[in-house]
């Protein structure tokens, strides 16, 4: 065993660091520093730079446009992008539907969709959850009925993240009502501009428009846009969820988050001393950092261990549970650190965009982020469901 970076890894780290320093857009950095909301164009700006460089899909096989990086190089990559506060890449195409298409798709589907995902030409959204199903995903009711070469799709999806920007969506739909729950489901790729699709915003506690309801009314979808066999969509769904869970461990971002909390706690005063000298606060910070280290090494083991390359298995549930809990504790500690300035609502009524928000810069988004991040133990299969998965699949209970 060896946890040191090799000379090649160190050279790679240097290359990545320099590339980010030279190519990360300054106007994006300014907007982030001001705490401004990011537009679709902002998200795509960094995507396109990485696409040009050939670094947009480190996790993909080389034949489909991946980088061929080793697990260690991928680890370095996520560390460096988090360290530099790079804007997150939308996971829907790159981390979710892309791997499903190159694993289960037809040659035509691969040829058409994969290059467009890499280039950022298509913005994807995910049509999994429904009102009344959620973590009991297999109870979904959106139905697709055959009509000649097409399906006619009817139903309602919810929690559809950033669907307001989407060109395409990947949907789980019921194609056999008689079959056992998991067996009558198919995986469809649907053009979001199809007649019959309505996207309605859901505003969350921090005031953000991040998620939506998607209504499908007699939406016509060619059968050629079904991935994998009819009624076998659950296979794609499980594959995708396991991938999603690894991504949301968020180790590199949480490490960066801890650095930010420390900076706040060094600035905020508690009596004569900075907050970071407060024994209680320090204890919580230390515990969080230690727990994050434990998560990091667990993730490294799963990336570089004997099962590496076989795809994420049920142990990804562990990464999801611990990763999401740590993300939440981090936002909680940040809110605690900012004290009174957690209370002002960061989007004042009737204030012009030019006016500076209330309190220190690091305080503006502390409360909305804390509220927003309660989602992490709920989405991607709630943490209760993840514990069920471990109990059943790992412990054999």
């Amino acid at each position, binding site marked *: 065993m060896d946890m040191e970076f090799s000379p090649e890894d160190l050279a790679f780290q240097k290359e990545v660091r320099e590339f980010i320093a030279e190519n990360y857009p300054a106007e994006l950095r300014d907007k982030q520093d001001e705490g401004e909301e990011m537009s679709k164009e902002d998200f795509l700006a960094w995507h396109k730079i990485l696409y040009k460089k050939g670094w947009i899909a480190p996790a993909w096989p080389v034949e489909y446009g991946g980088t061929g990086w080793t697990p260690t190089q991928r680890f370095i990559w996520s560390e460096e992008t988090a360290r530099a506060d790079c804007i997150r890449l939308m996971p829907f195409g790159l981390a979710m539907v892309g791997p499903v298409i190159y694993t289960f798709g037809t040659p035509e589907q691969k040829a058409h969709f994969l290059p467009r995902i890499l280039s950022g030409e298509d913005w994807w959204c995910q049509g999994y959850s429904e009102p009344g199903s959620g973590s009991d995903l297999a109870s979904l009711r959106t139905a697709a009925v055959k009509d000649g070469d097409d399906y006619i799709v009817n139903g309602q999806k919810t929690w559809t993240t950033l669907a307001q920007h989407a060109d395409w969506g990947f949907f789980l739909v019921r194609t056999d009502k008689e079959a056992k729950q998991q067996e009558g489901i198919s995986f469809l790729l649907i053009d979001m501009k199809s007649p019959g699709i309505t996207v309605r915003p859901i505003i969350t506690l921090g005031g953000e428009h991040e998620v939506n309801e998607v209504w499908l009314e007699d939406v016509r979808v060619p059968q050629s846009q079904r991935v994998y066999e009819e009624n076998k969509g659950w296979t794609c769904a499980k594959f995708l969820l396991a991938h999603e869970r690894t991504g949301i461990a968020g180790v590199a971002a949480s490490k960066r988050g801890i650095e930010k909390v420390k900076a706040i706690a060094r600035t905020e005063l508690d009596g004569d001393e900075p907050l970071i000298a407060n024994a209680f606060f320090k204890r919580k910070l230390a515990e969080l950092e230690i727990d994050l280290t434990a998560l990091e090494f667990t993730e490294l083991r799963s990336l570089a261990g004997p099962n590496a390359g076989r795809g994420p298995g049920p142990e990804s549930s562990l990464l999801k549970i611990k990763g999401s809990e740590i993300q939440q504790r981090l936002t909680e500690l940040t809110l605690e650190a900012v*004290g009174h300035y957690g209370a002002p609502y960061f989007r004042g009524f009737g204030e012009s965009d030019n006016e500076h928000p209330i309190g220190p810069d690091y305080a503006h988004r502390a409360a909305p982020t*804390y509220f927003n991040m309660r989602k992490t133990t709920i*989405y991607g299969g709630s943490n209760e469901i993840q514990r069920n998965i471990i109990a059943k699949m790992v412990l054999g209970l």
Partner: protein
Amino acid sequence: MDFTYTETQDMIRDTLSRFLADTYDFETRQKFIASDSGRDPAIWTALAQELGMLGAAFAEEHGGLGGGALENAIVMEELGKVLGIEPYLPTVVIAGGALKAVGGAQADAMIPEIIAGNAIVSFAYAEPQGRYDLANLKTAAKKDGAGYVLSGHKSVVYAAPWASHLLVTARTGGGQRDRDGVSLFLIDAKLPGIVRRDYPTVDGSRASEIYFENVAIPGDALLGAEGAGLPLVERIVDEATVAVCAEATGVMQKLHEGTLEYTQQRKQFGVPIAKFQVLQHRMVDMFMEVEQARSMTIMGTLKLDLPANERMAAVSACKAKVARGANFVGQNAIQTHGGIGITQELAIGHYFKRATMIEGQFGSADHHLGRYERIVLAD
């Protein structure tokens, strides 16, 4: 021993609860907190004039019902249940508490105005550098003839956009963190030189940054003795602390009730999710936190009149326990509701937001654990 309420106290609770049920349903609240002013002034007027509620905690000689901290707790708990943003805490509990402690001409003049609903007082005590230290003040009041000149910056002053008066802590002497040299002033909110920047708060209220730019204030604005005001400030902040704990009890009760209700109607895997043992245990734990918050609030309220150290230890024990409980109940209410819990649409998330702000209001759990240890566990 007796933990029952008097007939009058029961009547106060019932009257208020009925009134709020009629006037303060969640949709109505959401409408007025989104309006320009952020409130419905008719509610405050009704609380004063129709219900006589603003007089519950004041002496009969001032036109009140003769109550005190327990009556405040009753009102705050009911406000908590409806997420009330009415400025009862700064006006009645804090300013009223200060005036009762000081007595004399100032109390005689001001308390009837509060009871009648004519005066709204906002409490400007926190400063950007001070965190929860009440003595850490840069705001200064300099003697100027018979009066003072006030300068400084107060942060996150809840209800200030609505206030007719401000209760302000300022330094009349001593160094920035000295216990001596702190004074308390009750001033007109419209005096020249008071600059406000108003904004909404995440829990649905309104607040301001207040900048005092050489504000001339009269000598009789001083409450209590000059430079010896810290014990008075500590006393009223302790009253305010148990009052927000009472509010938290109402908020937590609604979070718990809402969760019970939701889990009984929401089905997954073919059964109501309330049938899952893991959720049952969680709701039992939430229930225990709500009950303990109620117990601690009563304990803290009943000990407000003890000597300072005993009072402070009791209040800190109360706040530490309630803050942890509010965190647990709030987070678990959201988790149990799933995605719908983090939307603006459902009331549960708004209760969670208020619970979260109460956690830190007048000191976090850690702050109060620290104060408790210094008093009770000192060598």
